[in-house]
């Protein structure tokens, strides 16, 4: 379940010691392209869809897509991380939108 990278938004986390998605991926799958300085997933088959990279990206440049054999195009699930809360927006293949907000850390 590989993340798709929006190359317009991804800036390679310039200024960080290591791009945040590269630093966080539990499978060591995210890498920066040496020529463009932008992130890519080096082995899309090995992604576990944990969405750690998506949550970490300061530019909201990453989006987790389902492999096509599991689900149809073009559903979306976008987290917006707050400091103690998260809001998820989910769009299904028919364009229906659902939102979920909850506390993910105690005050």
């Amino acid at each position, binding site marked *: 379940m590989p993340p798709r990278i929006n190359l317009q938004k991804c800036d390679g986390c310039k200024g960080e010691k290591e791009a945040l998605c590269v630093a966080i991926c539990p499978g060591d799958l995210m890498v920066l392209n040496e020529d463009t300085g932008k992130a890519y997933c080096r082995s*899309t*088959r090995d*992604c576990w869809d944990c969405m*750690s990279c998506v949550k970490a990206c300061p530019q909201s440049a990453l989006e*987790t897509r*389902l*492999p096509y054999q*599991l689900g149809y195009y073009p559903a979306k699930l976008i987290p917006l991380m707050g400091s103690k809360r998260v809001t998820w927006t989910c769009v299904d293949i028919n364009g229906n939108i659902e939102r979920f907000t909850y506390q993910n*850390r105690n005050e």
Partner: protein
Amino acid sequence: MTKKFPVRPQDVEEILLETDVLIIGAGNAGCYAAIEAKRRRPSLRVTLMEKAHIDRSGCLAGGMDAINTYIKKGETVESLVRWSRDQAGGLLREDLTVTMAELLNQAIEEWESWGLPIKKDENGEYLARGRWDIAIHGSEMKVILAEKVREYGCEVLNRVVATNYLLDGNRVVGAMGFHLREGKFYVVKAGATIVATGGAAGLYKPYTNDGIDSHHQIWYCPFNVGTGYAMGIRAGAEMTTFEMRWCAVRTKDFNGPIDTISVGYKAPMINARGEKILAERYAHLGGDKAPRFIRANAPMEEWLAGRGPCYVDTRQMTPEQVKDLKTDYLNERPTFVLFLAARGQDITKEPIEVYGSDPYIVGGHTASGYWIDVKRATTLPGLFACGDVAGGVPNKFVGGCAAEGILAARGALEYLESSPAPAGEPDKERIEQEKNRVFQPFARQLSTGEGISPWEMEERLQRLMDEYAGGVHQFYRMNRERLEYALKHLAILKDQTRYLVARDFHELMKCHEVIDMLDVAEVLVHHLLYREETRWPGWQNRVDFPERNDEKFKCFVNSRRDPETGKVEILTRPYEQIIP
């Protein structure tokens, strides 16, 4: 900046570190062990060796929506042991389960005090989800735990892949590994070592792994490949009950958890005809409360009998419940919500299909792992084990793994006091040997330029195990002849590891993952061969021995691989009932 790789083993820089307590694996259990060691003895150096990043490593990377064992009002340590015994087909280490259970609630309540939201009912008690489970909003629980580890002043070595223990005689005095980013070889010498690397996914072919992007569409964390088991096997540690595999009913295709639905919202499992499978066909085994291996086997039996597909029937759920259910999933496996959206599925109209997962070796769910004592000491002096890598305690789950981390730290500290770390330099020859072993795939890439990729070997292993050692495509069934075939080919594969090639450090890690998986798979097959009965039908189906045989097999099947000869010896240990 990163250098170009591969490099020759002799050109790799060596880093020698010393610490008092080394913890390998900074997941849930490892983090609790680190915190406990540091708060008991703040002057000691406590170091975590983690192949990923502590904030999102191990099983909790994506989060968790429940803690499956918490001792609520009206329940006791004893009632937990009895329940767990029933769930485990009568085989568990009661001494270990009792000591774990005594610390269970403390570990969970601490997590809450550090920031983990636990849902409450109208009385302010933790919101129950079934008899033992409590509901949480755990998507950030690992990040919260990692912050605490840093706050206590533990040292974290992120992106260091452990490859083998450092030994002084047969005492474990630390570990060796390599840094994925720095490209250096690490030798960490320690007074006491705690292994907390989790269980093993990826030994079997998942039914979801078609050619493109879904190889890791599996339930258990695919980055837990059994490295801790493998290091123990190679060093001659005694292992227990690998044959009690963990196979579970999961959402079909997605391979996601279903307790969320079936326990949390009391949605019954039904077959293609709409019959409530557990209530109607397994009432004599407990119905919806039947042991997990029965529940794992049930939909597979329905498929075999021509009554599949099977579902958890969500059609009675209210819109509010559906919203809650999806929120639960967002806390544990967020993309299941995406999966439903990508199917355009309204679960109040269409139920959720379920199927069996690929088998895993997971000591947090079953009794597989290191054979340990109540101090969590393994059979190798100086080495302690906790969490999914430690055996004997099925159904410990997230809370129990945390509790066991605390116990392992206490055991390690006690050991340090009575057995100070041996003075002097570690054995240079052994380090050199390990360095050559670790960087062999680089050496081959440089000398020959071609060979076997770790992905190729992993797929070969997975198909072999799936077809000959009872994978999901074989409905978990196996017999002696098939298992012997598996052993024969595992031996060939192990010999072929010398042809593995790696072009960079990520590939080098993948090479060592498959090498470790082969060592675990071999021991697993020996265990499966030895247990000539069927104790846990969904987990271990010997079609040549279909009945349970308490007379001969109500005992632990243990193994030890001789480090000199490489031969796996099987022995048995008695089951001891403590709780009436």
